[in-house]
């Protein structure tokens, strides 16, 4: 079979696991440079294997009888529950997992290289690279999972890698708080994921993707037939699974952890919180797409709505933020919303599945230009030692490489042709239009907002007046520049990949054509957004401030991120901590334990009261005995008679 020729793919994650164990266990015994080189060598090797797997799959063994098949080159029993419910550890190759292999290894390799420059001289350099390897291992395990439970396992492991890396600067309280928040919010979402898995597997008797996503197998019918509170159990299960995806992918209202996660080192934000882990939710829905589309279209509507809403919501917030990493974080949330929207509006089939293709396409292009934006932001932060736009200005003269690559990425995300974002965004909007025009218009508006906030950032950082800098800002050192240039090239070319030839909802290749009207509209609004940004921020003036003053309500709500964090704080602090945990602790000490102590006290009191009876005086005892005997005798006579 063709599966044998891919059996080497099992080494892709294992190499990284080995690197993690080696660097993690030896840690400080290794020189920082050696630790970094081990991890980097591991990811480069993994990338080579991933590229060869992609070439072998897309241009060879993957295509059989006119469509891309799913291959399982490796599978091993890990834990058996019942005869059919078993957790296996395996490697699954299909168009989207192979594509993700390329994305993850590429971005991860670039981040490894970039970090040599960015993290130079940091304490805990070895620990940093160990965690990067752990993350890459977990992420690759996630994308290649053959069954839901394997995916859940690696899902949790990427979560913990993210926790460890956000909290990398563990002596900084804000980083500690952010890491905790990220873990707990996603963990809460994963509760839904887990219950969804349990519910789905109870009816389908399987965790395997291969079995679940088989169209016409009838395996879903039993779950689709049972209804609970007005929806089929299958719909419930899929909505719950989507909840897990929404948590990881920072969809509203579970998005609050992602902006705070920017406390982590910037390369980590690029890798985990822009390009790879945060799109895991999109990948999850795509992985189960056949189940969603064929078994529970209602759940897919939820995905579309949440995606459309989040993309708009986050874009509005991004406009007013001044921390450059936070702008990018909200931009990421907004773009992932796009991907979710595309999946939600997609049908099952080849042409009908345009949204599916578009979503995966955007995931791919976004990974490149968003990683580039973050790495560029990292280079800026590295140069000026601040995250705030107010501390920046005129940097294009000092940081030419960073400036040029950042500009490419900003144009790409704004959807200016012929850069990558243009093509994928065009497909998303076309698919949305085919499903429900309102989704198209909101997506179109978001495209304008995106161009605006991106160029607001760009102009304020790279143009305008110089600020007071601690030292003359220096451009990225070679290790960082390599990564920037590589990703800039990728952002230029990947848009030209004929994606629908490789990735489609049912595995059948097809050809898409440009949607000229959609393209014209979206380019027009992108240019308008850039123009507006230029008008407001390129010239000295107070237009922006006056505009903010003109709309005080909207400005304040956007600036304060619609107070969602405050709502969460109220729920956790006031409801759960003060309303539940403290009262329970008090109740336990005073009521439950108090009852126990009360019983002991009562026993002691009673014995205190009656201990006088045991006086040790013989006369008393004799007296009591005689009295008792008489009483007994009387009773006996009475009852006897």
């Amino acid at each position, binding site marked *: 079979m063709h599966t044998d020729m891919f059996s080497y793919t099992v080494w892709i994650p294992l190499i990284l696991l080995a690197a993690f164990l080696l660097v993690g266990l030896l840690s400080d015994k290794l020189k920082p440079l050696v630790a970094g080189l081990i991890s980097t060598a591991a990811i480069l090797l993994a990338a080579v294997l991933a590229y060869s797997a992609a070439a072998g799959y897309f241009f060879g063994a993957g295509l059989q009888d006119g469509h891309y098949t799913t291959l399982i080159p490796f599978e091993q029993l890990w*834990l058996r*529950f*019942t005869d059919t419910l078993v957790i296996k550890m395996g490697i699954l190759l299909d168009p989207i997992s192979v594509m993700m292999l390329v994305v993850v290894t590429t971005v991860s390799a670039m981040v490894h290289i970039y970090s040599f420059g960015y993290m130079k001289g940091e304490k805990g350099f070895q620990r940093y690279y160990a965690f990067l390897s752990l993350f890459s291992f977990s992420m690759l395990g996630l994308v290649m999972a053959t069954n839901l439970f394997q995916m859940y396992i690696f899902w949790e492991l990427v979560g913990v890698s993210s926790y460890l890396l956000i909290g990398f600067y563990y002596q900084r309280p804000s980083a500690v708080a952010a890491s905790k928040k990220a873990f707990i919010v996603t963990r809460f979402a994963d509760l839904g994921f887990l219950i969804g898995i349990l519910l789905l597997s109870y009816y389908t008797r399987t965790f395997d993707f291969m079995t679940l996503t088989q169209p016409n197998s009838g395996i879903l019918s039993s779950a689709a037939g049972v209804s609970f509170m007005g929806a089929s159990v299958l719909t419930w299960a899929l909505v719950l699974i989507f909840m897990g995806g929404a948590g990881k992918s920072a969809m509203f209202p579970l998005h609050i952890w992602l902006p705070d996660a920017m406390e982590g080192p910037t390369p980590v934000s690029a890798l985990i919180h822009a390009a790879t882990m945060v799109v895991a939710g999109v990948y999850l829905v795509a992985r189960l797409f056949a189940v969603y589309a064929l078994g529970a279209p209602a759940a897919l509507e939820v995905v579309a709505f949440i995606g459309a809403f989040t993309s708009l919501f986050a874009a509005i917030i991004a406009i007013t933020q001044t921390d450059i990493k936070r702008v990018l974080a909200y931009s990421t949330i907004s773009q992932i919303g796009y991907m979710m929207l595309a999946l939600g509006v997609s049908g099952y089939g080849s042409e009908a599945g345009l949204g599916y293709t578009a979503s995966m396409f955007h995931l791919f292009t976004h990974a490149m230009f968003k990683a580039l934006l973050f790495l560029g932001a990292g280079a800026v932060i590295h140069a000026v030692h601040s995250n705030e736009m107010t501390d920046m200005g005129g940097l294009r003269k000092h940081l030419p490489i960073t400036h040029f690559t950042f500009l490419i990425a900003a144009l790409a995300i704004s959807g200016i042709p012929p850069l990558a974002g243009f093509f994928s965004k065009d497909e998303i909007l076309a698919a949305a239009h085919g499903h429900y025009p309102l989704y198209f218009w909101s997506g179109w508006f978001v495209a304008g907002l995106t161009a605006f906030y991106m160029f607001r950032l760009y102009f304020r950082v790279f143009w305008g007046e110089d600020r007071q800098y601690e030292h003359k800002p220096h451009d990225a050192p070679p290790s960082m520049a390599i990564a920037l240039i590589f990703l800039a090239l990728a952002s230029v070319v990947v848009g030209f990949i004929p994606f629908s030839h490789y990735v489609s909802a049912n595995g059948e290749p097809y050809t898409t054509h440009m949607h000229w009207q959609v393209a014209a509209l979206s380019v027009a609004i992108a240019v308008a957004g850039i123009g507006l940004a230029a008008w407001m921020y390129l010239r000295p003036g107070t237009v922006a401030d006056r505009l903010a003053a003109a709309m005080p309500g909207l400005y304040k709500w956007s600036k304060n991120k619609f107070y969602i964090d405050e709502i969460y704080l109220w729920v956790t602090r006031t409801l*759960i901590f003060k309303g*539940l*945990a403290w009262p329970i602790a008090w109740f336990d000490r005073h009521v439950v334990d108090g009852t126990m102590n009360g019983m002991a006290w009562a026993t002691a009191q009673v014995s205190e009261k009656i201990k006088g009876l045991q006086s040790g005086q013989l006369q008393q005892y004799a007296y009591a005995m005689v009295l008792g005997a008489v009483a007994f005798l009387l009773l006996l006579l009475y009852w006897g008679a």
Partner: protein
Amino acid sequence: MDRLSLLVWVPVITMIVISFFKDPKKVRLIAAAGMAVQLVQIILLMLAFFAERQAGNDAEMLFFKDIAWYSNLNIHYTVGIDGISLSLILLTGIVIFTGVFASWEITDRAQEFFITLILLATGVFGFFISLDLFTMFLFYELAVIPMYLLIGIWGSGPKEYSAMKLTLMLMGASALLLVGLLGIYFNSAPDGGPLTFNYIEISKIHLPEAVQYFFFPLTFVGFGVLAALYPFHTWSPDGHASAPTAVSMLHAGVLMKLGGYGALRIAVMLMPQAAHEMAWIFIILATIGAVYGALGAIAQKDLKYINAYSSVSHLGLILFATLIFNQVAFEGAVLQMISHGLITALFFALIGMIYSRTHTRNIYEMGGIMKVMPVLGTAYMVAGFASLGLPGFSAFVAEMTIFVGSFQNSALFVRVATILVISSIVITAVYILRAAAIMLYGPLRKQEFELLPDARWYDKVAVFILIGAIAGMGMFPNWLAEMIYTDFTPMFNRFIAN
């Protein structure tokens, strides 16, 4: 001498040898050597067990041995093991061995301390090999009584109060249990013939239902108190807080499992009808325990209290799983006993080590100690991740087995309870990460902590063995899971047939 009795004799001989020495340094070496021998013999026993099973010996109990020791009442010394008791014996062996290393710094009356500690372990080993209810009960008491001395003499804080409270509550439970066990005994021959204490024999007959309804709650609660069944769990926080390190390890790690084991193997398995009818009451209590314990842990400041409430929560899961009545859930209950035993032992060991350096267990008085003690801090994080059910560690395997098992019961009541119980794992993440954030991270709160030493060699022995066991079970779970699942089959079939 038979193989299983050796499990009792090795600790006894160790105690006898210790009694000839007074010097703490010698005493602890002897204790360590004795428990090392014990651990090795358990591993050999395990290999022998696998060999027997491989050879096709599918008797329910292996290494069976039966001696009548009071034939008037048909009381026997009957021993035998299956995969379930064997895995708990392995747990006990690991915890007592690492417990000796966690007690390395004890110099006050070391001889008496180690003798009492090993006496406690002897009782536990005896309990797990016994198939005769009477003998089992004797060993059970042998394990509970040394607790009083260990806490009362070597404890800290309000140790007399805690020791008294713990002992009285457990003795109260023992009284219920004794009534329950005697009730079973006196009805063990409904068709005439000799009465028996042998629980394998009893499980083959059908106890009259009226008897079951009366004695099931007594037995379940009797064992349940030891497994921190809500609302009879309050001995646990005070008891743990006052107990010396190794005693907390052994108590939460192993002794509380006697409760879960007994509740499953004796109460549920011998009285299936009553268990079935009354399950709802205890499912409610166990669910409350799981969620309430976790919420209670959020509000604690003392590391030992956090861990004690966490134990209430995790043992709630065990008791819950014993009441779902399917083989996967039962398997999960046993896996959770082992997993929680190892993790909580690691936690208490680390808390003891941290306390011996900082002289406080209040998390707010610490802060930033990760920088000073990276090994202990990292180990604490590992324990935390294991406890909150991260894949790759044992608790994930155990909890998922319980959840998958419970989900196979589609009654709405059980489903709701299951979902509530599952939600406790989110709360677990909250209290674990909260404690870690306050205690380990941030800037160093007290400058005098700057010079505190990190783990010493004996600390590392205890910590690394426990982490190894937790990760080993978490990464390669299937051999253990299959062994437990398979060995549940005969018991489960009788349970269904009844």
